[in-house]
Structures are given as C-alpha cells and as structure tokens.
C-alpha cells in the first residue's frame, strides 16, 4: 500500500466531481474520480468521446468553461489542495507545476502572433524572463529540444505544419519546467507517421526531464506503449484503474474487456471488427444503477438499481463493478 501514501504521490486526486449546469439540467460529467501520480510516472486516461476525460483534466487546472462546477473532491499537488487556492495562487500553479498540451494545436495558438512569442509568453507571465525579447534564448532552446530550428520562432502558426505546431505546443508546455504535463489527445488529427514522432518525442522528454505525464487518449495502443498506469473512464466515472499490464492482460471491468476486444488484431486478418453495441449514457439522464449497465452483457439485477462504488480488488487495482463483489468477496481487505 506504499503507493497510496500521500508523500510518495506528486499529484493525488480524491473523489473529484464536476458538473455542468445548464437549462437542460445538471450534467454529471465527472463523478468520484480518484487517482494518483508519482514523479516521473505516466498515466493513460482512456475512454470514449464525451466520457469526461478532458473535463476531468480541465478541473485539475480549474479551467472549466463558464457552466462547469467542481462540486466535490480534492486535488492535492504535493499535499496542497488546489481547490482551496485563490485565483492568483492558482495562476502561479498553472504551467509552473502543471502544464497542458491542448487538443488541436492550431486552435491553441493565436493566429496573429509569432509562435516564439507565444512560447516566451509563459516565461514572461511567470517572471522567468523580463520581456519577450529576453526570453528568446530559452525559446530557442525549447524549440530545438522538440526538433524545430530556433530561427523559426518568428514565424506564425500558419507557416508551421501540423506536426510542427504540435511540437511547438509541447515546447510551450515545457517552458516553465513543470513537474506534470497533461497531454490532451496530442496526436489527434495528425497522420500516423507524425503521431509516432510526437509520441516518441513525448517519451524521450519524459525520460530526460523526469516529467509526470497524463496522456488523455482513446487510442489503446498509445497507452500500452507509453504509460505505466491506465485509468479507464466510462460515462464520467472511473471504470478501472491499474497498472498497464493488469489492464491489458487481466482486465476485470466488462467495459475494459469490451474495449480491448474492440481493438482490431492485425495478426488475425479474417477477424471481424467488434464494437460495443449501444451508446454512452447522456450525462443529464443517467441510468439509476451502474452507468454501463444498459450496454453490459454481464449485467444482472443489482446493476440496474444500485450504483457500484470504486473498489480496490487487489493492491493497486481499482474497479467499479458489482461483479467484483459477487465473484471475489475475499478481495475486500
């Protein structure tokens, strides 16, 4: 149980819940999410589109859109609860301790300002450089770290290729030497070759700089390659959370199993593509029981009426499923 001790964790999230409040009701986008991250560790956050991955990550930085409300939980960064900081203290945490690589680099860059200025901006905002001009050497260093010639820092985002923009975003995320980098689907909208380059780059930087990385993705192969631990989310809740080997070799949650089955196996070419029938639940009309119950082939009566809680079935392996209680009652304790 040493992994759970707070002093060993760089980041510890406990029972985080985030809602979106709108005219159509309350959308429970993230509910009771707990996980922890050690120095230099990388965690994969996996789930279907709209299952609350990005919302959970934005909650960590307290950057939700106007309708978002963090209603419960703690986010402990080196023992300090980020939810209790005032706005100025939070600004100091952002990027310095925890930075983010955004989904779709074109949108995350201001089209009318040179890329180098936007990277230098992080240094100026955090008083690591007195001016954008003084930040130039560091910006050059950062760009070269991700394989972009420093001379291109005066160019605009539209003069970069898609892969370069994503690499520039990575350089930007590293500007203030943070301990944690959240990579929100860093490879979507890039072709396979560039994807591989970006992932390789991330892996190298993680190793060299000792970064803790949270990789948000729906690509399981990426997770298998890059991450130490995996958190599978379904409909806003934690479905299964464990180290990468357990998830891939002995998945316990029916959703994780279906997800892995749905992944095409290239060694069996005659195999048909498998999918999970049904749709993810609408977050303002959640089923009364388990959120996965309507699509779960193994669901039984209890699943439809009672929400399962997060259970630790083995040291370091958490699952949210009634089956775990039925089949392995001895795991408790």
């Amino acid at each position, binding site marked *: 149980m040493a992994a759970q001790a707070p002093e060993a964790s760089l980041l510890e999230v406990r029972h985080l819940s985030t809602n979106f409040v709108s005219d159509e009701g309350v959308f429970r986008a993230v509910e009771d999410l707990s996980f922890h991250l050690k120095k230099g560790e990388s965690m994969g956050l996996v789930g279907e589109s709209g299952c609350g991955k990005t919302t959970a990550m934005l909650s960590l930085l307290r950057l939700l859109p106007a309708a978002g409300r963090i209603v419960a939980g703690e986010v402990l960064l080196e023992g300090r609860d980020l939810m209790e900081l005032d706005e100025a203290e939070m600004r100091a945490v952002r*990027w310095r301790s925890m930075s983010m690589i955004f989904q779709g680099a074109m*949108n995350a860059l201001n*089209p*009318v300002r040179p890329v180098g200025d936007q990277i230098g*901006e992080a240094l100026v905002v955090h008083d690591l450089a007195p001016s954008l001009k003084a930040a130039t050497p560091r910006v050059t260093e950062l760009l070269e770290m991700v394989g972009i010639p420093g001379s291109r820092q005066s160019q605009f985002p539209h003069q970069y290729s898609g892969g370069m923009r994503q690499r520039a975003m990575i350089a930007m995320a590293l500007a203030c030497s943070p301990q944690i980098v959240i990579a929100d689907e860093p490879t979507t909208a890039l072709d396979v070759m560039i994807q591989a380059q970006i992932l390789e780059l991330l892996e190298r930087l993680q190793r060299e700089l000792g970064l803790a990385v949270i990789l948000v993705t729906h690509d399981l192969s990426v997770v298998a390659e890059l991450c130490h631990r995996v958190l599978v989310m379904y409909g806003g809740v934690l479905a299964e959370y464990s180290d990468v080997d357990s998830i891939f070799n002995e998945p316990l949650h029916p959703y994780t199993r279906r997800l892995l089955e749905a992944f095409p196996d290239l060694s069996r070419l005659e195999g048909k593509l498998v999918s999970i029938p049904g749709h993810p639940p609408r977050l303002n009309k959640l089923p009364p029981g388990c959120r996965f119950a309507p699509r779960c082939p193994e669901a039984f009566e209890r699943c439809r009426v009672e929400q399962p809680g997060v259970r630790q079935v083995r040291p370091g392996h958490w699952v949210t499923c009634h089956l775990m209680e039925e089949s392995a009652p001895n795991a408790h304790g």
Partner: protein
Amino acid sequence: MRQRLVRWRQNLASFGKTLVRSRMGLVGLTMLTVAIAAAVLAPWIAPYDPRASIRVSIEDIYARPSSGHWLGTDDGGKDVFSAFVYGSRVSLIVGFAASMISMLIGGTVGLVAGFYGGRIGNFLMRLTDIFLVIPDLPLMIVIVAIVGPSLWNIIFVIGILGWTGTARIVRAQALSLKERQFVTRARALGAGNFYILRRHIFPLVLPLMVANTVLVISLSILEESTLSFLGLGDPTTLSWGGMLNFAFTRGAISAGAWWALVAPGLGIVWVVLACTLVGNTLEEAFNPRLQSHHLQGEDKMVVRRGPAQAAEE
C-alpha cells in the same frame, strides 16, 4: 527589432496590395488624399483669405463665377472657392477627432463588455442600447445649445454620441474570441484577464476597430455639417455646413446663386464618399469573410487551353 521592421513592411505591402486590387478603395483613398491635401495646403490654394475684411460693392454680392472668383461670391461678397477650401479643414478635423473619441469609448466599452461579460457587460450593453435609441440629432442640438457651439464642443458631442456601433461590433468580436482555445491556453499558462485582453484579444479586434472608425469619420462629418447647417456650428470658423446655412438663409436660392450651394454640398459628398469607400475596403481587407472570391472568380477558375479537350471525352 529588424525582424519586426521587416514584418511591418510586409504587412504594409500586403495591405497596399489589397487596397490597390480593390478599385473602390483606391478611388476612395485618392479622394481622401485630395481632401487632406486641400485642407493642409489651404493658404496656398485659396486665392483669398476668407477671414480678411474686404470692401464690398453691390455687384460683388452673389457674383457669378468668373476668372477672379472661380466659384463666384457669397452673400458677403467673399470668394466661395476660398471659403470652400478652408472649410475642408473643419470637416476633416471634426471627422477625425470625433471618430477618435468614438473609437476610444466604443472600443473600451465593447472590449470590457465582451470579454468580462456578466453584470458589468450587461450594464455596459444596456447603456449602449440607451445611447442607440436616443435620437442623436435633437440631443446634439440640446447639448450644443447648452455648452455653446465651439469647434471642440461639437467634436466632443459628436464623439460621445457616435460610439455605439463600434462598441457592438467590438463586443461581438471579443465575445467570440474569448471562447477560442488559445485563450484557454493562455489562461492555462497562468495569464491573467488583463494580460489576455491586451495580448490576445486586442490585436485581433484592432483591425476591425480601425475599419469601423473610418466609417464613423464619414458619419461625424455629416453630423457636423448638419449641426452647422442648423446654425449650431462654430461661428468663428466657416465649415461646409455653415456655408450651406448662410447660403440657404440669406437668399442664395432666390438670387439664383447655385454656386454658393453646390460647392459645399459636393464637398461634403466628396469626403463622406471617400471615407465610406476606404472604410469598406479596410473592412474587407481585415475581415476576409466579407470577400466572396469563390463567386467572383468563376471565369478564371479553369485555365486549361481550349474547351475542345473536355468535349473529346
């Protein structure tokens, strides 16, 4: 620094290209340049000093255009052409200064309302609505009557009543910009509201503001002319509106002295048209969505030689 300079020059060059490509913009710019040149060089262009006191005989009043007086004389026997040239100064000063005030107020109100939103934004937009529904002209007349008709008072009055359009355009733009992801990114970076406003929102709003301001110039000039025509102009300087007022109230029409009316009237049209053309072109250059090349360029889209090639298949 050098790079900045190069970039500036590139921007200027591409802006120039857009302007030249648009014939309307070029015409407008030429017209505006002529007007500004006339205003600046008035003492050298005008054959007489309109302020000098002269001795008048009866034949000099509403005298027809002649070689001595290209546009005839007015009710006081003074040269219409000289007054016309000097009058351009008033129109342009009022136009530019008043629209500067409008841009400052409208830009600030729009940025704050759009970016911060909430209660402040609501309050500012309701204030804008109030200014929008008040009929400008009667209010202007009242204010000028109270504060007195000096040149700067007129500029001030036109300025504080003309910012509503700018405010709404800037607000709309700021509203849409603040939802863009690079703003979230800047916030994740640890940037505060004011920083984001200054470095990310403002540079993207500015071109729109400039284009809008040029359009406001023409409105301001029209409003100044209206006030002067109604006799509320600065009595110490003769503007085109003032010339029209004098001609209209002092019998130019019954005397058949069309020159005293046509010259200042055309002057107003000239400057207003110039500003509108330039403003529209700027708007088009800064807001590419207003362009519709895909509709205009149809005939140039296919450039293969000879239609026979296609017909063969």
